[in-house]
């Protein structure tokens, strides 16, 4: 058996590639979030809207997006769409799958936040003669948003962890880099502990911030 090199030295040799992978993971999560958040709000407005047809379409999109594991959505996009003549690179495929999945969960979070705003706020808007849309965007949404920021951040942390699925369609993100390093050194335990640490470096501070925000926002205006 080949004597193992010291742990820190082993990690040090693998780290540059892993950090590059981490950047790709962060980019995946970032782009998916930027697309997914407004999309989630749109889905939510469709579901909550008064138009029956639009509302049903919204509901179908959201329920499919939430009902299927993100991995299956990813496979459908990457391996399934070519049957319809749509060939996507692995990176955009991952973004479509992750953003859709994420936006569907966010849609439900938005809905919960909007429904938590007291009904008197809408009534006040009506009594003042404000247009429904003005009331929604200037009165209801800011209050809803405030109460759901912690939940949205939590969902975004999950999104970041879900980027590891993109490894299965060969996006060179953190998980992929870790697997490559592991398969060349055969020291999988050491490699994946390092990979886990790399994810934790991002997710742990993020959840601390979430908890801190939660406390801040629980205070009144």
């Amino acid at each position, binding site marked *: 058996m080949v004597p193992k090199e010291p742990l820190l030295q082993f990690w040090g040799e693998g780290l540059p590639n892993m950090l590059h992978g981490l950047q790709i993971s962060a980019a995946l999560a970032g782009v998916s979030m930027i697309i997914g958040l407004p999309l989630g709000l749109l889905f939510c407005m469709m579901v909550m809207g008064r138009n029956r047809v639009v509302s049903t379409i919204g509901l179908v999109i959201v329920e499919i997006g939430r009902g299927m594991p993100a991995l299956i959505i990813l496979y459908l996009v990457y391996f399934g769409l070519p049957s319809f003549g749509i060939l996507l690179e692995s990176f955009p495929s991952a973004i479509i799958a992750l953003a859709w999945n994420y936006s569907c969960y966010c849609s439900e979070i938005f809905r919960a936040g909007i429904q938590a705003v007291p009904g*008197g706020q809408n009534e006040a808007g009506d009594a003042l003669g404000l247009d429904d849309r003005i009331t929604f965007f200037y009165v209801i949404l800011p209050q809803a948003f405030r109460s759901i920021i912690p939940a949205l951040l939590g969902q975004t942390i999950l999104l970041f962890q879900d980027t590891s699925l993109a490894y299965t369609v060969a996006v060179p993100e953190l998980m992929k880099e870790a697997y490559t390093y592991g398969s060349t050194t055969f020291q999988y335990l050491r490699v994946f502990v390092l990979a886990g640490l790399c994810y934790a470096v991002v997710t742990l501070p993020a959840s601390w911030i979430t908890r801190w925000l939660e406390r801040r926002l629980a205070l009144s*205006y």
Partner: protein
Amino acid sequence: MTLATLVSQSVAANTTDDIDHSKYMIELGGVVKSYGGNTILHEVSLRVERGEVCSIIGPSGAGKSTLLRCVNLLEQPDDGNMVIDGQFVDFTENLGKTDLMALRRKCGMVFQQFNLFPHMSALKNVVFPQMHVLGRGKAEAEERAMELLKRVGLEDRADHKPSQLSGGQQQRVAIARALALDPAVMLFDEPTSALDPEVSGEVLNVMRELAEGGMTMCVVTHEMSFARDVGDHLVVMADGRIIDEGDPKEIMAHPVNERTKQFLSAVGR
């Protein structure tokens, strides 16, 4: 049954009478409202003169708030009609969005729970509707808002959020917010019911000043002294009907109707 009750029961839209309709701000005719088989209002008719303070009293569940909310169509009645500030409304028809908003613009409403926008300062609460409903510019809206906040005694609280204000102060901001849209009539839905007795006074004072300024007001209230001293017109409701109406002092001093007597003695009058 008093003469006033008889008069008010002739339907508002009756065109063959020889009443001068222009002196009325609100004429409600045969308003019916029910929720799932439960009738809240039974053909209620009511006239409110311009510049009059009309107090609506009665036991809870009488339909007072519902009647008030029918006036600005927060509730859509099932039957009846209304003339408000010269505009005819048939309650059996669904109003278009433009008509509905034009109608609501005539009414300022003050709620029991204030319903201020908690994420906006007192000033912004008064400024924001002016800009979006009347299309006023920011400077003009702010000037008007400060003028009104001063009138309700809160010019030094303009930058405070509602949560930093007492209940009485919040309600006064809510009054300023409604006044800022220059309504023809002000509707008050139990404006002091959520307040401690000691801060109710400051809200009632603002309302008294408003009444003295000639504002037409409909006030659903449990404040008997306000109804007697400030009100011009007292309406007593029970079980979805107006059971008595007329001069407040007269009714309170010498109630004729049995239900009215009962109610007044129950509230200690």
